[in-house]
């Protein structure tokens, strides 16, 4: 999931010859790889992020085991499911809500946006390719964390066998897409205010909680859960994990994935709209 994903979601490319499209795709793959490389550039950083996710996984396991104590089941969720959910939630949030700031914001702030606009590849695809690259760089440490959880028996294979695994994979990809698009829209506020730091922090906090990465929506009071189900955040983490644990299955699972796909489309349109407004702003005000 590098370049092609990015191009298809933006719709920024209009009717262009096939050779041109291929060149764009190559450029995007290069950008993605570059950001993988820069994410892995400093050894101490890589080691620390690796150890960090492992420690976090162990700690959430301990907390959730303690929370359950000897209670076998709360609101229909048993202890092992809750623990396993917490593990995957920690892993997901590690990838989807990192503390990095979007390259877009940095470029706007430094006034480099005018140069970026002149490049043959659109700015939005560029930004997405970078985000995908950074996300991809996080995959190895997450695989490690999942393996650790499997070894210490805090996680089981997904419900529903091979088909279940496939559904989980599809739902995860869509969840990542929703998260990246949300990130992009928030980062684009940089065109209106130079201080996106606060907005990104609020977004990160809301997304973490509302996506169900910290605590599953199952445990939330009815009114809260009802509200969160209408927001795009639950499509980032809660939906893939519900598929994983088989709490939605069969046609319900298909429906949940369809809702995710709908969010991808809606957010892509929103991003496009915000982007055209931003572009107008840059053109009128000269960046």
């Amino acid at each position: 999931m590098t370049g092609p994903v990015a191009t298809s979601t933006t719709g920024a490319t209009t009717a262009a010859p096939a050779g041109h499209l291929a060149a764009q795709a190559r450029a995007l793959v290069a950008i993605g790889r570059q950001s993988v490389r820069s994410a892995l550039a400093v050894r101490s950083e890589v080691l620390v992020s690796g150890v960090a996710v492992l420690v976090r996984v162990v700690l959430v396991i301990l907390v959730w085991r303690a929370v359950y104590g000897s209670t076998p089941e709360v609101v229909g969720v048993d202890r092992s499911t809750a623990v396993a959910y917490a593990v995957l939630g920690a892993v997901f949030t590690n990838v989807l809500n990192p503390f990095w700031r979007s390259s877009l914001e940095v470029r706007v702030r430094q006034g480099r946006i005018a140069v970026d606009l002149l490049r043959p590849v659109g700015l939005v695809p560029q930004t997405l390719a970078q985000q995908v690259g950074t996300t991809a760089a996080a995959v190895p440490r997450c695989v490690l964390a999942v393996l650790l959880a499997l070894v210490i028996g805090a996680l089981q294979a997904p419900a529903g066998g091979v088909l279940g695994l496939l559904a989980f994979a599809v739902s995860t990809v869509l969840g990542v897409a929703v998260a990246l698009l949300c990130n992009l829209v928030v980062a684009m506020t940089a065109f209106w205010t130079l201080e996106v730091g606060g907005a990104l922090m609020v977004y990160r906090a809301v997304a973490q909680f509302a996506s169900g990465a910290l605590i599953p929506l199952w445990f939330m009071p009815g009114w809260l859960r009802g509200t969160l189900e209408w927001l795009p955040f639950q499509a980032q983490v809660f939906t893939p994990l519900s598929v994983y644990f088989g709490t939605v299955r069969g046609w319900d699972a298909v429906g949940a994935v369809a809702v995710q796909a709908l969010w991808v489309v809606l957010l892509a349109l929103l991003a496009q709209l915000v982007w055209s407004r931003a572009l107008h702003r840059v053109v009128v005000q000269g960046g």
Partner: protein
Amino acid sequence: MAEPPADGAAGTAAREPWRPQLREVSPLRAWWVLMATSLRVVFAYRSNLLNTALGSVALQGSQLLFVGVLLHRFEQVGGWGFGEVALLFAMRLCAHAVCTVPFGQHSAIDFLINEGDYDRLLLRPVSPFLQMLAWRFNPGSLGDLSLGVVVLVVAARLAPVEWTAGAVVLLVLAILAGGLVEAGVQFALSSLSFRLRATWSLKVTVDTTFADFGPYPLGVFGTVGSLALTFVLPLAFIAYLPATALLGRTDELLLPAWAAYSSLLVGPLVFWGGYRAFVHQSRHYDSPAG
């Protein structure tokens, strides 16, 4: 010399050598002069101030919400009820604010070193450590402080504690000491920047570990976990240990009961140790090539 004099250069004031007498400036005064300036700059940009403070409130608030939902469902965590966990959370957050409001600029160290701004600090007759702390002011820390105080006031009513004068004094001292523990740890991590070039993830990891796992009674982490979070990463000293003293729960400690008060001593010690580590490692500073 070969050029014609510019306007004003011929003025009479310029003719006598300029060698003024300089007073000694105490480090504390220098720090305050710089800090006051940073504060003035921050308060000049109101929208940014509000924006960033709100971000911090949201970040800490999401954790509060999480703990709230958890207790709403499970009623207790590790044997601690809602009021007790609330007090622990509030003490941790207030201690965090004690760390971030005056000392939060340790987070600038990577930037200072890699962008060469640390050179600039070394050219001034003030300790670079103090200059770093006053480098800028992070308005987010005001978010930590305000949320912390609000939650503390509420939690103090909910917690099963009789608020005698002694208890209030212990609470205040414990929060201050907890802030010193956190600051000391972050200073020590910052000192690694002089060798590693990037300690940002390390610091964020420790910061979020404190924030996310601070509100639980240590017992939930098991024996190994508790010991690790006491002696490897001194989370226990930030709020948990003194909280057990306030809540009369010292019998659940793996350590003797007096250990509940040890953070009052450990705080200043860790703070001093972190500062010394910073000063020591700063000798390895290699200014980046111009």
